């Protein structure tokens, strides 16, 4: 590997870009691919995209021999709106699964470091915090407040992003009302369908920790392609 190529790779990783190192195993020739930065439909680009998407390196059989596609995905991120009881259970689970977690709640009695030690807390309004977070394909967002004033601005922001998972806590009835509000705000049915609601896999969860498990399970299923995005 050329030192200059390694430097470029390290820079891409520091910039949180999704990058693939393609190595021809016969010749040793290498190049970096940024398959999400273009619409290239070649088999190599598609294979690189899938490797990044499923977070799994792959070997591509090219005309010039096998090409190993090693993937470098930026960290997964989880943005939680609502420093509520379920969030307290969800934070350590997500951190354990290697997510960089941010908890957002302008209500300081909820979003306090006493309730949330060892996690990034953001006491700005959620859409303001999201503006800076800039959700990407490696970001999941969950809204947990039940409060339209807090949840809706966050949802409106993330539905314009590439976030791989959007989930909203609330009953079927709450979710139907949310649908009406978002459609009224100009979002399409297709946009709305991206929101997982009621949130979480149906495992009969009752307690905050159980609900956190069902949320984390659903995020994982979507990430790994076992459930619709």
């Amino acid at each position, binding site marked *: 590997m050329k030192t200059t190529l390694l430097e470029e790779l390290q820079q891409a990783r520091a910039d949180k870009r999704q990058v693939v190192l393609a190595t021809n195993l016969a010749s040793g020739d290498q190049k970096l691919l940024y398959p999400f930065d273009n619409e290239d439909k070649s088999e190599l680009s598609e294979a690189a995209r899938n490797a990044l998407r499923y977070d799994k390196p*792959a070997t591509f059989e090219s005309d010039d021999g096998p090409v190993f596609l090693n993937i470098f995905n930026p960290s997964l991120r989880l943005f939680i709106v609502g420093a509520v009881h379920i969030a307290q259970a969800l934070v350590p689970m997500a951190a354990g699964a290697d997510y960089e977690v941010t908890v957002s709640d302008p209500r300081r009695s909820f979003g306090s470091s006493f309730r949330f030690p060892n996690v990034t807390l953001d006491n700005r309004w959620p859409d303001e915090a999201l503006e800076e977070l800039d959700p990407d394909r490696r970001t999941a967002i969950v809204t947990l407040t039940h409060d339209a004033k807090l949840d809706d601005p966050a949802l409106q922001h993330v539905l314009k992003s590439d976030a791989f998972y959007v989930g909203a806590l609330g009953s079927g009835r709450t979710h139907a009302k949310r649908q009406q509000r978002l459609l009224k705000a100009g979002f399409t049915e297709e946009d709305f369908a991206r929101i997982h609601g009621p949130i979480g896999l149906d495992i009969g969860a009752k307690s905050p920790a159980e609900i956190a498990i069902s949320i984390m399970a659903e995020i994982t299923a979507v990430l790994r392609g076992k459930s619709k995005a």
Partner: protein
Amino acid sequence: MTETTSILPDDDILAQALNWKKNGRDVALATVINTWGSAPRPAGSQLAIDETGQMVGSVSGGCVEGAVIQEALEIIKSGEPKTLEFGVSNDEAWEVGLACGGKINVFVEKLD
């Protein structure tokens, strides 16, 4: 109030490889490219080795690193990349094979 976390941890393998290189040492990189059966580290796992035999990272649970280092020192001299095979199906490699019964291929290259 926000904090930022660096994406590259202190023990970043590629950062260490680059660091060695910048300090004038020759360096090789080993990458798991394929696994079959029960293998301790998945494809993509990396090990960086410097010319003195120091290493960071892993390509197995410690089972084949010794052999990889030996090959890496040769590849540092020759400059020719090579794919190494370890596992139960290769009797000769069994001495340095995987106790777990898996099989792995490791691509080793010099950092030029």
